[in-house]
């Protein structure tokens, strides 16, 4: 039980609890906060895996901007309490055991395939950084230049689309 395992267990439990809170919460704002918790715990896991830049980008962009947009829209639209849906009993009594069975089956195959090898992540502070920002940006701007430029056009389209769609008819 070294510190990497401890961090993984804590963050993994936090992420799963956040996802469960997303499903079980009654107010959409609480679901949004639960999703932010999931994102932050995933960012810590990325740090554990040595991808520090991606962790920072995840918090900066995903948790700090996209989820703020979600929270704004929830507040502006006054999304009230979530009504309890009458889910079918089939889903509960067959779905849940089936889901757990599939999970165990997948875990078995994953362990068989990747079990022996362990990622070389030591303690969080001593994690050898696989992805230095310099290498990442070299790859981004040379090999993946075309997708990069396409995403900039995509963002432009998204901004235009959002403005046009959300405008009131005047």
């Amino acid at each position, binding site marked *: 039980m070294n510190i990497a395992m401890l961090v993984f267990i804590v963050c993994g439990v936090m992420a799963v609890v956040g996802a469960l809170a997303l499903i079980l919460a009654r107010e959409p*704002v609480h679901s949004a906060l639960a999703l932010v918790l999931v994102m932050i715990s995933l960012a810590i896991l990325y740090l554990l895996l040595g991808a520090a830049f991606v962790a920072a980008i995840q918090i*900066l962009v995903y948790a700090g*901007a996209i989820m703020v947009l979600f*929270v704004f829209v929830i507040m502006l639209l006054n999304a009230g309490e979530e009504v309890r849906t009458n889910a079918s009993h089939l889903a509960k009594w067959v779905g849940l055991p089936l889901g757990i069975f599939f999970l165990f089956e997948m875990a078995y195959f994953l362990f068989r395939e990747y079990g022996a090898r362990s990622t070389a992540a030591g303690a969080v502070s001593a994690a050898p950084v696989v992805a230095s920002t310099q290498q990442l940006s070299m790859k981004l701007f040379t090999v993946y230049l075309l997708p990069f430029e396409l995403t900039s056009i995509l963002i432009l389209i998204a901004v235009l689309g959002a403005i046009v769609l959300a405008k009131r008819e005047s």
Partner: protein
Amino acid sequence: MEFVTQHPVLVVSLIKIAIALFVVMTALAYLTWFERKVVARIQSRWGPYWVGPHGLLQPLADGIKFLFKEDIVPPAADKLSYVLAPFLAMALALSTLALIPIGPATVKILGQRTQLVIAHSNVALILLFAISSIGIYAVVLAGWSSNSKYPLMGGLRSSAQMISYEVSLTLSVVGVLLLAGSFDFYDIVGGQSGRWFHFLPKWHIIPQILGFICYLTAAIAETNRVPFDLPEAETELVAGFHTEYSSFKFAMFFMAEYANMITVSCLATLLFLGGWLSPFPASWHWQLYLPAAGLLLGGLALIAGGLRSVQMNAKIVFPILGIICIGVGYLCTFAAVMPVIQGPFWFMAKVFFLLFFYVWVRGTLPRFRYDQLMSFGWKFLLPLSLINLVLTSLVVVLRMR
């Protein structure tokens, strides 16, 4: 005891965190005193005067008041968000301080050689921006969960302002990153050592003056200070997003705002003002005695001012403080302390200067109206930061050829 020997790094980190928290909380409290005094002098009045000598115990009195006030929770408030918001604001404001180094030297604590930073990361800059971008949730949740119209409007306006200026803030820093080549604070400050023409220090404020101005403006807007504090000004929106908060939770918002101010000033000194580097050339050896000399002069001034003052308690307390100051100044002349204290001394001097600038701006400038604020952020500051970025990258590329 064997916990200490088995986990030395952890114990040393805990000690550093304890020291940093103590220093920062005291600095927060006395920053409020300092601000009230300076704004008062700008407005030709005295400021806090009666509570303790020259109002020095005013922060303590305010703290006690905040602790004992009744804690009102609005009946229809959303409990989780209402309680979460101030704690989130405070926690984020304080945790950004873990990434900020105050000096280059390494000290020995409990036999372990450590650097003068709580968490050394080589992506520290962007992690700091990431942590402060979560601070927007505190504002939005506070406004919404109070279930009342002034906080809601104040919260939405304040967070929209913070998001808008956050873009310019991060863009104005990219120029510095291009010059320094790394996210690590040690590399950024290391890139600022050296001199041009043998006397001008190579601090980033000189090539990046446009970036510095953009950064400072965006930082003042990001921390919701005058002249950008419409969402929380008392004459405008009652008290904005923290209207419905009382006692301890309000105190947390208050402290979080000042802690954000300190963090942003520390970041500005690290990025633009050369961090812990001294403005004098290294060959001037007398500058090593500057901390001690400064403390000595400060102590003498305190003693003289105390003996001359009219207030009874000032006559007693200030000379005692002056003697303690002189004692600490003498401590700084010891050979073991002197090289270590140089970095933090210059760092704190620069942070203090920037905080004074913040307070000065508060006492001087009028407020922006909200639409003026938003159009200033998007139509002026953002293009300015982009121009700075383009010019800087042009110069860097041309220099590489």
